[in-house]
């Protein structure tokens, strides 16, 4: 029965470092390298959807800055790591000149949170790909 099958296909021998790096650059690509095509496609779609909605809501990207108090800097650094975790999607967006202003109001605020959420979802996927590559998981 396909609905209850466990994917027991042998995992191709790949360096966990390469798998994680590829998974960071393109969400789901690490799984693709490991032969988990379906899983990779779902990861790509969910991360891309979250990031795209964040962009459509004109969410500002977090910036590394030394201005403000410790808590503000902590939020900026944490948010920046979350943004960066989306990989090439984030880099291409920034390099293409996207720079939404940090406006007051719920729209930009929710957009910024969705951009970070996309990166955090990708981190979850990268950990999964690492565990598959090292044999800790099927």
């Amino acid at each position, binding site marked *: 029965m*396909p*609905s*209850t*099958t*466990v994917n027991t296909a042998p995992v191709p021998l790949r360096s966990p470092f390469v798998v994680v790096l590829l998974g960071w650059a393109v969400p789901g690509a690490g799984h693709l390298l490991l032969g988990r095509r379906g*899983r990779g496609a*779902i*990861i790509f779609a*969910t991360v891309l*959807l*979250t990031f795209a*909605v964040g962009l*459509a*809501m*004109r969410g500002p990207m977090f910036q590394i800055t030394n201005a403000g108090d410790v808590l503000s800097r902590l939020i900026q650094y944490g948010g920046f790591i979350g943004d960066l975790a989306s990989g090439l999607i984030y880099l291409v967006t920034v390099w293409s000149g996207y720079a939404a202003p940090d406006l007051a109001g*719920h*729209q930009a605020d*929710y957009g910024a*949170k*969705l951009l970070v*959420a996309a990166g955090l*979802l990708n981190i*979850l*996927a990268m*950990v*999964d790909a690492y565990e598959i590559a090292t044999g800790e998981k*099927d």
Partner: protein
Amino acid sequence: MSLDLDHFEMALLFAAVSSILLGLVTKRTDRERIRYGATCFGYFMLSLFGIGWLMHFLHG
């Protein structure tokens, strides 16, 4: 293109994508994944409405 989701719509989107990925990476079979994803989504909704009503009563 500009999108303006309200708080509920945004929470719904976040709950959906998070539940899908949590189900995908934590369980072994498709049946377990669907069940766990649905459970996570249910808990997200329960928290959303629960905290919403709590704030409603706290604000008076």
